[in-house]
C-alpha cells in the first residue's frame, strides 16, 4: 500500500477533468431536474398514478431484468471463451462480437417483429409455433442481443487481466473447470460484469423506439406520452426523476459489487492465464456459442432488412451521412475516453469530489435521450440568455453563435449521455495497475508521465480503447439528441435509418442500418490491430 499523501497529490489535473466530465454529463440532467422542480402543477401525475403508472413500472422492471440477465449471461460466457480459451476463429470473434452493439435496438425490433408476427416467414415456416417477438419479454431479449457487448467487452478484459493463480489453485484442489470458474474467475470479474449490466439496464430503460414498437410500455413510454400526448414537459421531467432514482439505485448496486471485490484483489504478480485449447466438439460448441448472438442480434435482423431493401428504392444522402456520423462519433469517442480515463484516475484518490463527480456523470445514461436532449437545449438556451446581454453590453450585438445550432452542442450532448460509458471501463482497466506494481516502478525510478506511459498505459490501453469504441458505436446510433440538436442539413446514418423505419419503410431503412454496422467496423479493425500490436493482455 502506498501512503495516502502520495496518492492524493498526483491526480490534481485528473481531478479537474473529472469535475469537467461530471459537469458535462450532469448538466442536462440537472436542467431536467430544474424543469421538474419548477412551478406549475397539473393533475396529470395523479391521473397517471391512478391509471397506467403501475403497468409502466412493472414493464420497466421486466424489460430491465430480462435485458440485464440476458446480456450478462451472453457477455460473460463469451468474454470467458475469448479471453481464456483457444479455438478456431477466436481471434476474429474477439472483436466481431462487439458488432451487434452497432445495431440500434429498434432496428432489431422492427426486423424481428416483421419476421415473427402472424404472416411473417418465421410464423409461416414454423406453422405458427414460433412465438411473436413482442411485449416485455421480446423487448428485453432485443436489448440483450444488441447490448451484450457492454458486458462482453468488460468481462473479456477482466478475464484476460486476471492472474491465473487462483483458478489454477482451485483446479489443483480438484475443482471442475466450471466450478473453478464460478468460484475464482467469476467473482474476480464481477465488478466488470456488473458495470456492463448496469449500462444495459440503463440503456434499455431509457429506450423508447423498441418498447413502443413491441408493445412493452415502460416508464419511458409514459414519460414521452406525458410530453407529446398531454403536452406537459413539466410532468415528463418529473417522471424522468423516477428513472434517475432507478439509475442511482442500479449504480449503487454496481458500486457495492466493486467494494466487495476489494477482498479478491489479485496479487501484484501477474501471471497471464494460459488458454485452454478446445478441440473437436468443444471447439465447435465454442464456435457456435460465438456465432449465435451474432446471428440473432445482427445477421438475421439486418438480413431481413436487406431482403426488404432489395424490393425498395435506395435511400439517398447516405454518403454525406456516413461522413457526418464518422466525424461526430470519432470526436465524441476520443473526448469520452479522455474524460473517462481522467475520472478513473481521479477516483483512485477516493476523495469525495471525484466520487461524487463520477456518480453524477453516470446519470447521463438514466434519462431517455429525448428528455436528455431537451435538457441540453434548456441548458444551452439558459447560457445563451446570459451570453447575449453580456455580449451586447460589450459589443452592441448579440453573441455571434447560436449555441443550440452548432455541432459542438451535438458533441456536448453525446458526451453528456455516453461519457459515463467510458468511466467504468477505464476504472476497471486502471484497477489492473496494482499499488504493488506501481510501488515497484517507483522504486526503479519511474515517475509522473514516464510512469504512466511505461507502466500504466500498456495495462490500461485495452480498457481505454474499448471504452472509446463503446462510445463511438453509441454515438453512431444515437437518435433523439442528433435529431433535435443537429445543424441544418446534417443527416446521420441513424437519422436516415429511423426516418424510414418510423415511416414503416423497412426496405429503405436497411441501407443506412447496414452502414451503421459497417462504419462501426472501421474503428473496430483499427483498435483490434492496435491492441494486438501493443497490449500485453491479449497476445
Amino acid at each position, binding site marked *: 500500500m502506498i501512503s495516502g499523501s502520495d496518492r492524493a497529490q498526483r491526480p490534481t489535473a*485528473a481531478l479537474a477533468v473529472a469535475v469537467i466530465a461530471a459537469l458535462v454529463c450532469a448538466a442536462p440532467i440537472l436542467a431536467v431536474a430544474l424543469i421538474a422542480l419548477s412551478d406549475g402543477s397539473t393533475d396529470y401525475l395523479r391521473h397517471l398514478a391512478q391509471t397506467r403508472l403501475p403497468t409502466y413500472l412493472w414493464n420497466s422492471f421486466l424489460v430491465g431484468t430480462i435485458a440485464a440477465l440476458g446480456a450478462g449471461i451472453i457477455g460473460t460466457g463469451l468474454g470467458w471463451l475469448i479471453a481464456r480459451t483457444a479455438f478456431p476463429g477466436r481471434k476474429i470473434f474477439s472483436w466481431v462480437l462487439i458488432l451487434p452493439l452497432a445495431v440500434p435496438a429498434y432496428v432489431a425490433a422492427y426486423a424481428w417483429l416483421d419476421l415473427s*408476427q402472424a404472416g411473417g416467414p418465421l410464423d409461416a415456416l414454423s406453422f405458427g409455433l414460433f412465438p411473436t417477438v413482442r411485449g416485455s419479454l421480446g423487448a428485453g431479449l432485443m436489448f440483450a442481443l444488441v447490448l451484450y457487448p457492454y458486458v462482453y467487452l468488460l468481462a473479456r478484459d477482466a478475464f484476460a487481466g486476471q492472474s491465473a493463480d487462483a483458478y489454477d489453485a482451485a483446479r489443483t484442489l480438484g475443482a471442475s473447470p466450471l466450478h473453478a470458474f464460478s468460484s475464482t474467475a467469476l467473482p474476480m470479474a464481477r465488478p466488470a460484469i456488473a458495470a456492463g449490466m448496469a449500462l444495459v439496464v440503463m440503456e434499455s430503460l431509457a429506450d423508447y423506439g423498441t418498447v413502443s414498437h413491441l408493445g412493452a410500455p415502460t416508464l419511458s413510454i409514459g414519460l414521452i406520452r406525458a410530453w*407529446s400526448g398531454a403536452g406537459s414537459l413539466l410532468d415528463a421531467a418529473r417522471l424522468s426523476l423516477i428513472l434517475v432514482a432507478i439509475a442511482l439505485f442500479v449504480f449503487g448496486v454496481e458500486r457495492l459489487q466493486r467494494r466487495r471485490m476489494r477482498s479478491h484483489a489479485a496479487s501484484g504478480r501477474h501471471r497471464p492465464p494460459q488458454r485452454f485449447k478446445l478441440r473437436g466438439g468443444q471447439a465447435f460448441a465454442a464456435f457456435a456459442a460465438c456465432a449465435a448472438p451474432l446471428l440473432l442480434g445482427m445477421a438475421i435482423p439486418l438480413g431481413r432488412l436487406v431482403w426488404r431493401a432489395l424490393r*425498395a428504392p435506395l435511400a439517398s444522402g447516405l454518403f454525406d451521412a456516413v461522413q457526418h456520423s464518422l*466525424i*461526430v462519433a470519432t470526436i465524441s469517442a476520443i473526448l469520452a475516453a479522455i474524460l473517462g480515463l481522467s475520472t478513473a484516475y481521479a477516483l483512485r484518490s477516493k476523495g469525495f469530489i471525484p466520487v461524487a463527480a463520477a456518480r453524477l456523470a453516470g446519470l447521463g445514461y438514466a434519462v431517455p435521450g429525448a428528455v436528455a436532449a431537451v435538457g441540453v*437545449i434548456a441548458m444551452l438556451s439558459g447560457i445563451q440568455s446570459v451570453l447575449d446581454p453580456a455580449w451586447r453590453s460589450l459589443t452592441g450585438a448579440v453573441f455571434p453563435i447560436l449555441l443550440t445550432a452548432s455541432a459542438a452542442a451535438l458533441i456536448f450532448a453525446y458526451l453528456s449521455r455516453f461519457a459515463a460509458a467510458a468511466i467504468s471501463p477505464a476504472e476497471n482497466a486502471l484497477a489492473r495497475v496494482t499499488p504493488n506494481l506501481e510501488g515497484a516502478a517507483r522504486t526503479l525510478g519511474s515517475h509522473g508521465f514516464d510512469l504512466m506511459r511505461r507502466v500504466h498505459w500498456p495495462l490500461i490501453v485495452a480498457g481505454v480503447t474499448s471504452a472509446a469504441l463503446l462510445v463511438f458505436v453509441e454515438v453512431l446510433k444515437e437518435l433523439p439528441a442528433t435529431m433535435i440538436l*443537429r445543424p*441544418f*442539413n446534417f443527416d446521420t446514418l441513424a437519422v436516415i435509418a429511423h426516418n424510414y423505419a418510423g415511416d414503416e419503410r423497412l426496405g429503405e431503412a436497411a441501407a443506412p442500418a447496414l452502414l451503421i454496422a459497417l462504419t462501426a467496423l472501421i474503428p473496430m479493425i483499427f483498435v483490434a490491430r492496435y491492441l494486438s500490436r501493443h497490449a500485453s493482455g491479449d497476445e
Partner: protein
Amino acid sequence: MKALAKILTGVLVLAACSPAPESATETTDTAQETTRIVNVYSSRHYASDRAIYAAFTEETGIEVNLIEAGGDQLIERVRADGERSPADVLITVDAARLYRADEAGLFAPTDFSGMLPDIADHLIHPEGHWVSLAKRARVIAYSVDRVDPSEISNYEDLAGPEWEGRICIRSSGNVYNQSLMAGLIARSGEEAAEAWAQAINNNMARAPQGGDTDQIRGIAAGECDVAIVNNYYYGSLARSDDPANNAVAEAVGLIFPNQDMGGTHINVSGAGIAVNAPHPEEARELIAFFLGDFGQRAFAEMTNEYPVVETTQWDNPVLEASLPFVEDTRNVNELGENNAVAQRVFDRVGWQ
C-alpha cells in the same frame, strides 16, 4: 497529466470548429445578399418533400436549409431559441402538434389569402396561423375473405360484441389514434368516446404492437379481421414493388366510415411561418410552392396523401379509387384541443 490536458484542449477546439461549415450556412445577414435562403424545421421526412425542396430551389433559386425531427422536439428547439431562432417555416405531420406549436406562440399570424383559393376552411387555422399541406384519412381496413363490408358503416360499429377478438389496432401512444379519439370526443363527447375506447380495447385480437402496416399485415395473415389504419400505409403496400406487399393489400379492403355520421376522420400535415422568421418572404414562397401543382402532386403520387388543393391534377390509381368520400369537416385545430383529454381516456380504459 499536462500533456493530457493539452490534448484535451486541442480536441475541444477541434470539436468546436471542425464541422463548422454546416452551422455556418445559417449566418443569415451576410449570406442573404448573395443567395436567398429559407430555414425549414419539419417533422415530415418523406421523399416527396425532398423532391419538392429540390424543385423549389430549382425554380426560385432559394436554398432550403432543413432540420427534420419529431414535432415536439422541433417545438422545444424553436421555443428555446426564442427571438434568435433561425426557423422560417415549421412543418408537422399532425394537427395536434400544429396546435401545440401555436399554443407556444411559435407561428406568425399570416394572411394566406391569395395563396389558398381552393382549400377548404376546416384545413386552415381560424386565424391563419398555419395551413394544411396534405391530408390523410384514418380508415377501417377489413379482410375481403372474412368480412362483408356492409357490416360496417361507422367507427362506432366496431364497438359491437360481434367484433370481439377481431380488431387489430396500434398503441394509443400513437398520435393518429389520439387524434381519432380527439375527433370522436369533439363529435360525441368524452363519455361516449370513452365507452367506445373501452369496447375497442375489449375487442382487440391482440395487444397493440407495431405500426399501421403491421395491423394490415395482421389482417392478411388471419390474426384479425379488421384494423384502423391511415390510408397511405395501405397505398404504400398496394403500390409497392414487392409482390408480397401487393398480395397483402389484395387481401384487404378499405372502408371510409361515417359517411352519414360526421364524415371520415382526417388528419393533416401543416405548415406555418415562424413568429421570428428571419426570411418571412421566402417562407411564404415555400408554402405557396407546397400548395402549388408540383407540391400537391408530389404528396398524392409519392406519399399517397390527399392534396388539400382540390383542383390539383394527379395520377395515383390506388388513391383515386378511394375517392370520393365525405370527410369530417370540423376544423382540424379541434383535434389539438382535445388531444390531452383523448390520451387520458386511453389511459383510463387501459388501451396500451
